[in-house]
């Protein structure tokens, strides 16, 4: 004979389904919410890793007009230039350790992309941020006219993409970072020089009379031994004109605080939903058990101890909650994986799904939480059923 618990649950399919659905809904909300919070934190870490340098220096205008921030944090396209002499000037400072220049360009749409993409050229000789990442993603040295594409771009290794009439080969595709870099194209400095030249030739560049060999957009800098990033930043801002040095940390802190806001909101929402859910579960269990007072009294007459009756109520509640929670988590996973991109866009914050281990832990945590809430919600009914006055209940239809 199957357990009485199971029979009771199956014997009332509508009630069982409703309670399971409720538990599923709660678990879904908690699971999705937690995953989003985790993904946001993960995205921020990823962005920090991708920026890869302690201090970034851009033309003064690019910093004050937020052009740089828009490119790096908002995923807009843009370009701005300063004279290459700034590179030598800054490299000469004592507080500056590693330094590498990057050149920016925005495409006007190409066959990979429905929107213009950001193109960033780096100098393989000095680069210390992009090259390790390409390596990690399985790419190697870039040859002339080779490009590397971000993971969200619809282009793959071996494809040919054309920018300002110059055809480039996709040599590697980068791993997902959850940041604006996922829609960026990287290439070496020689190739981007050609692309900039071509954009100038076609009159499609906002700047005129540029010599690509003589310009840079952004300098990535690590402070020298014995100097803090703060000191390096101040050093540059004090001694070099018409540039602005920024600390990567401070740039991210804007994101970090809006991320804290979003995460806090989600957390509050989770707690509210959960508290409400526990109250509803409590009412539902109380009602469902109350309606069966007589049956519980009969079980008592047949020789059930108080603890047996309480255990029965608990078991029912736990089964329903755990089963519902599992369903909720599965639905959560089904929603999260395909709709991750949509969530990322809606939030416009760095967003990167954590690895399978973290996801599994989240599932486990949700199940435990659901079981605990089910138990909490069932305590009252279990206690009441164990105290049931059989005489009074069974006298009902005297």
């Amino acid at each position, binding site marked *: 004979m199957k357990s009485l618990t199971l029979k009771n649950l199956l*014997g*009332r399919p509508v009630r069982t389904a409703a309670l399971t659905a409720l538990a599923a809904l709660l678990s879904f909300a908690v699971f999705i919410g937690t995953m989003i919070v985790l993904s946001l934190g993960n995205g921020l870490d990823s962005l920090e890793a991708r920026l890869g340098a302690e201090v970034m220096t851009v033309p003064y205008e690019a910093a004050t007009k937020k052009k740089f921030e828009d490119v790096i944090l908002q995923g807009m396209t843009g370009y701005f230039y300063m004279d290459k002499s700034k590179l030598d000037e800054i490299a000469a400072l004592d507080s500056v350790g590693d330094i590498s220049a990057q050149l920016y360009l925005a495409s006007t749409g190409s066959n990979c992309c429905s929107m213009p993409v950001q193109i960033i050229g780096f100098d393989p000789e000095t680069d210390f941020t992009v090259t390790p990442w390409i390596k990690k993603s399985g790419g190697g040295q870039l040859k002339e006219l080779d490009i590397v594409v971000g993971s969200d771009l619809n282009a793959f290794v071996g494809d040919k993409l054309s920018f300002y009439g110059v055809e480039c080969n996709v040599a590697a595709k980068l791993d997902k970072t959850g940041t604006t870099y996922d829609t960026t194209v990287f290439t070496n400095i020689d190739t981007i020089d050609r692309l900039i030249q071509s954009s100038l030739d076609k009159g499609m560049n906002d700047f005129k009379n540029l010599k690509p060999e003589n310009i840079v957009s952004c300098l990535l800098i690590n402070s020298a031994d014995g100097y803090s990033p703060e000191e390096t930043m101040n050093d540059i801002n004090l001694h070099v004109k018409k540039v602005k040095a920024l600390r990567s940390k401070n740039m991210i802190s804007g994101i970090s605080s809006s991320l804290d806001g979003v995460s806090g909101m989600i957390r509050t929402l989770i707690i509210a939903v959960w508290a409400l859910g526990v109250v509803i579960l409590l009412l539902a269990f109380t009602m469902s058990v109350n309606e069966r007072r007589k049956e519980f009294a*009969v079980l008592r007459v*047949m020789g059930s101890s*108080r*603890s047996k009756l309480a255990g029965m109520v608990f078991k029912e509640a736990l089964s329903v909650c755990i089963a519902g929670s599992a369903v909720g988590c599965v639905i959560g996973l089904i929603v999260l994986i395909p709709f991750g991109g949509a969530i990322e866009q809606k939030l416009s914050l760095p967003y990167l799904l954590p690895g399978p281990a973290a996801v599994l832990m989240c599932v486990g945590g949700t199940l435990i939480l659901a079981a605990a809430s089910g138990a909490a919600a069932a305590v009252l009914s279990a206690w009441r059923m164990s105290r049931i006055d059989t005489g009074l209940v069974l006298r009902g239809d005297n």
Partner: protein
Amino acid sequence: MKLSAENVTKEFIRKTGKSNHFSAVNDVSLTLESGRLTVLNGRSGSGKTTLLNMLSGLLSPTKGRITLDGEDIYALDDKRLSRLRNQRFGVIPQGQTAIHSLTVLENILLPFSLYRESGEAEQKYALELAERLGIAQLCEVRPAELSGGELRRMAIARAVIRRPSVIFADEPTGDLDDENTALVFGFLRELSAQGSAVFIVTHENNAAGYADEVYRMNGGKLEISE
């Protein structure tokens, strides 16, 4: 086997005149013995069910003791007393008492399955009882489809499935027709002949013909009839 009520009184809280409690059962002594069928008559509200609940281990008396072969059953903790009720007592409660998510057969086997003790032999005995009580063809059906008489017969089979020492029946024929009434009393008589102590509470007088002893309850006091 002897189950005795020794000067038991049960008081309930209720405003009656000046006092705020009243005695539903008042200083009652009574002994149930193996092989004997005892009938308790009395008007509605006279305290019959209260006495039955005390005897069957469901309601502890305010005063006095209930002893099984000399041992006070209310001295046992809830677990032990519950086990005792399960193994030694069979109760046919008032009214309809089916568990609706179980089939008729599963209902009959409930006293065993509560303690996960229902095996093939028990199953066979359940079918035998169902046969004997004329509900064999209903074994796989849910209680919702049964008539009042069939439900009562199911409750009887359930009460006696563990071959209990004492069988309690509270108004077992209250809502039954004459044919079912005779069937139920006949069966209970048979069980007492097989060695059980049988205790039947009823406000009808027609049970007296089956009884070894007949008592009468009157305002919580026990009187011997005849």
